């Protein structure tokens, strides 16, 4: 593929490992960005972001306008959802969602009315004021921008769907904003295309983000296999007079677009185990997120659609399309005139997953749908035993020991896998790509990671049950003790009363006895007196 001869404006460092798979990007980055006709129904997955499931605020039968809020966030770690087009809510029910498990989850189903009427939009006004010199005014506008980003349902569009307002919340000690345009995974070209056609909006979005911080550098990290995007960025920067933005051109190598990898390439710093980029004073956003933030702040548009690469050998009209969220994948297949794809992959060939069926709606994280032809992705190869060649170790961009992780994951030795820093694995798939035995290494790591996570949850549940059981035992003990105590006291009181009563009786008896004695004495005396009277 063509390489850009634009020289990087900042020093570029190296990352360990990495692979050079066939790029397959020319298939989809030639045509201009297009739109497809609306699908018959949109299936909006309420768990389409990292964090908690959104809570629906509409009911079946409601008419909604495009951009109207249909689900609110559940806590801060969640996101708002908006209607991607105008129409009627026809169901709120469980449907298969875009997830490797193929499980059902709650979805809002909207039947479009075809009008695509926007709800009233509420952009943040006086954008110019945001750079105001007064501190108080600036603080206020920071809150305002964050609130707008939150309310418009913006999440990271690079793939993890992490709610953006959380990422932007930390303010102190942030000195560099990195815009991730590397897009290193084969087949995917949506960021490339977005920059080619909307570089100005993306840079304006980056500018808005930079206003949230005090005195911040902006670096755009991009691979040299996107010459047109680099040109577009350069000319947009000139026309917007944003000369402070630096372009970091990194050599094409997978996975240089990983967050930690791009940081290492552009700054030479490694994000330490268990830390976040923010701990190094860095914040990174994808170009798609910058574009969405610009649309939310300047135009008031919520996140209701995204650029998706439709590609693969079975795709008849490969290219990049603006796709409203919830559009079922089978609609994308038929609308591009494609027939019988062997597999449907959501995401790229390295990190994506096979869709459980073609009814699932696309979500905010969907950057690419690959409609693969038979034998295209080389996924059907039989895994053979590990020959301990060590190629995986050379390919690992996180400097881990994939072979050790594999042995431990296979033997369910999870604590050992953790000792080998399993959780630093970014699941990029470089190790599995180079493996001559075609071992599905990433699946082993995912298995180990998800099992460890589940075990931790179970452990904390067991801990809670133990606490509750102990508290109950203690309570029962206490109740028993208190009861015994009460009984003891009552018995004592009774005894005392009895003793009291007994004492009183004794006195009475004594008195009576005394009285009786007195009486007897008196009678005896009387008798003697009478006798004496009689005698005398």
């Amino acid at each position: 593929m063509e390489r850009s001869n634009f020289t990087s404006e900042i020093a570029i460092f190296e990352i360990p490992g990495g692979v050079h798979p066939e790029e397959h990007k020319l298939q989809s980055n030639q045509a201009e960005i297009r739109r497809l006709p609306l699908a018959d129904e949109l299936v909006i997955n309420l768990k389409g972001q990292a964090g908690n499931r959104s809570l629906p605020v509409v009911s079946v039968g409601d008419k909604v306008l495009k951009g109207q809020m249909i689900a609110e966030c559940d806590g801060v770690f969640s996101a708002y959802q908006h209607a991607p087009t105008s129409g009627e809510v026809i169901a709120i029910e469980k449907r298969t969602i875009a997830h490797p498990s193929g499980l059902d989850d709650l979805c809002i189903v909207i039947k479009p009315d075809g009008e695509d009427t926007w709800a009233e939009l509420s952009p943040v006004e006086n954008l110019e004021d945001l750079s105001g010199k007064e501190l108080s005014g600036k603080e206020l506008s920071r809150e305002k921008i964050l609130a707008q980003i939150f309310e418009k349902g913006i999440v990271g569009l690079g793939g993890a769907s992490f709610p953006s307002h959380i990422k932007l919340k930390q303010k102190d000690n942030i000195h560099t904003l990195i815009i991730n345009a590397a897009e290193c995974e084969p087949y995917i070209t949506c960021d490339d295309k977005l920059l080619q056609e909307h570089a100005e909006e993306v840079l304006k979005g980056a500018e808005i983000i930079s206003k949230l911080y005090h005195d911040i550098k902006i670096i755009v990290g991009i691979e040299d296999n996107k010459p047109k995007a680099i040109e577009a960025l350069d000319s947009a920067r000139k026309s917007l007079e944003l000369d402070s933005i630096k372009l970091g051109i990194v050599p094409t190598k997978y996975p240089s677009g990983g967050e930690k990898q791009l940081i290492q390439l552009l700054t030479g710093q490694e994000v330490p185990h268990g830390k976040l980029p923010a701990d190094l004073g860095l914040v990174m956003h994808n170009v798609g997120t910058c574009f969405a933030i610009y649309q939310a702040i300047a135009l008031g548009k919520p996140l209701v659609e995204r650029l998706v690469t439709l590609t693969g050998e079975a795709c008849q009209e490969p290219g990049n399309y603006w796709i409203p969220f919830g559009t079922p994948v089978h609609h994308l297949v038929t609308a591009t005139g494609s027939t019988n794809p062997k597999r449907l992959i959501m995401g790229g060939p390295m990190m994506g997953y096979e869709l459980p069926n073609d009814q699932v709606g696309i979500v905010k994280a969907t950057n690419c749908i690959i409609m693969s032809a038979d034998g295209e992705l080389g996924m059907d190869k039989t895994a053979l035993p590990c020959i301990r060649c060590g190629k995986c170790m050379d390919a690992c961009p996180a400097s881990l020991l994939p072979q050790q992780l594999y042995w431990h994951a296979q033997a369910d030795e999870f604590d050992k896998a953790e000792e080998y820093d399993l959780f630093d694995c970014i699941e990029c798939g470089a190790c599995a790509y180079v493996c001559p035995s075609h071992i599905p290494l990433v699946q082993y790591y995912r298995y180990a990671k998800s099992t460890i996570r589940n075990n931790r949850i179970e452990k904390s549940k067991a801990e809670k049950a133990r606490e509750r059981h102990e508290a109950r035992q203690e309570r029962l003990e206490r109740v028993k003790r208190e009861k015994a105590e009460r009984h003891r006291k009552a018995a004592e009181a009774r005894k005392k009363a009895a003793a009291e009563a007994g004492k009183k009786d004794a006195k009475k008896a004594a008195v009576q006895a005394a009285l009786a004695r007195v009486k007897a004495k008196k009678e005896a005396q009387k008798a003697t007196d009478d006798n004496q009277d009689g005698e005398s």
Partner: protein
Amino acid sequence: MDLITAVIILAVLGLIFGGVLGFASIKFKVEGDPIVEQIDDILPQTQCGQCGYPGCKPYAEAIANGDEINKCPPGGEAGVKALADLLGREVIPLDEERGEEKRPSVAYIREDECIGCTKCIQACPVDAILGAPKLMHTVIIDECTGCDLCVEPCPVDCIDMIELPQTISTWKWQQPEQMIPIKQVEAN
């Protein structure tokens, strides 16, 4: 003379070491039996009593005193394995008399049938049932360990054990399948 010196030195040493040991026995006194705590940590804390003991802690104590490690169906094979690892014993199959390993479930009270007798409340080992005499009871799902102990005392049989459905948050990846697929070859 030498003999006396030796005796004195030994006596002094004896006193010093005695003092150190005495101090250590007070300073580093171990509260309870740590092995019981470790065993209790592995047990699933359902407090179901299927092992024949009134709760997980008593069973942990029994194991520490030499009882078998295969009497806990909720802990399952994984639990037996963890206990065997901890205690250096053989991994043995679960004792079938104690019950089978089941998928996680919770109790559910059919509320319109509940007569409010409080018998299940008294049976619940983790206080996960809420209610009052002659008033409807209900199970706090998040606290229920699925131990079955409330089902039996209910005089109107209005408690069901319901398997927890698999959700996105409880789903986990499976280990990849056996490496070399086995092909059936028909004999001619």
